[in-house]
């Protein structure tokens, strides 16, 4: 099952603009509190961490708990100072990992 990520970053911005970054990845975010009809607990399987780096440096990070809905969505902001590349990384239970990237070109 290849994890699918959707990223929304403006392709262009003027220097100094505050831009919105949206990131969504497909994941069940199984809480670990649900039971099957037979009464057995369904084991927890969640994404626990999200990191956004810009040109290699961390600019935003989040910790997720079971109370984050399935297919976790995030929107956050950043000042566009330079052109460059965003790298997004999700990690979670049972060795889950997913990455995505996006580029922005900053003009005067």
């Amino acid at each position, binding site marked *: 099952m290849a994890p699918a990520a959707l990223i929304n970053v403006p392709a262009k911005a003027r220097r100094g603009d505050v*831009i919105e970054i949206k990131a969504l990845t497909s994941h069940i975010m199984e809480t670990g*509190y*649900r039971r099957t009809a037979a009464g057995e607990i369904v084991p927890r399987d969640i994404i626990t961490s999200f990191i956004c780096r810009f040109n290699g440096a961390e600019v935003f990070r*989040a*910790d997720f708990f*079971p*109370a*984050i809905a399935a297919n*976790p969505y995030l929107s956050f*902001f950043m000042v566009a100072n330079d052109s460059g590349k965003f790298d997004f990384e999700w990690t979670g239970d049972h060795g889950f990992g997913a990455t995505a990237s996006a580029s922005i070109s900053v003009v005067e």
Partner: protein
Amino acid sequence: MMDQQDETTRRHFLTLAGGAALAGAVPTITIRPAEATPATLSTAIRNVIGEAPLHIGRVKLDIPPLVENGNTLPMTVSVASPMSPQDHVKSIHVFNEKNPQPNIGNFYLSPSSGRAQVSTRIRLADSQKVVAIAQLSDGSFWQTSIDVVVTLAACTEEVL
């Protein structure tokens, strides 16, 4: 907003009045009223803020106040902050009162964030209070809370 603050203050007072010896102690700390899981919620909050005082204000929490389905609720937290190197929001922490676990999410920002606002989608297992706390660069903590009514719960339902 005022109503909410008044109510919090009133509950706070009543809680304190219960232990008369404590009346008047550190009025900026909101002590949780006796509800379903006040201990786990306040422990989770203390794990983040330590012994620091918790101020009310600055933070804005947007969640629909009445939802049918607790499985996915849009949530936006924003903080009034210039987001300058001298004065910015370092982190935002969101908690709930009645889910099996008190934490919802932690979000770490920096002056390069430009705007102190984060959105995501959350689950609520019941009608309850959601609390958002922001840590500013001067080390102070600010909070707001909102009551959400959920008619269909999330998290604990049976898998078919």
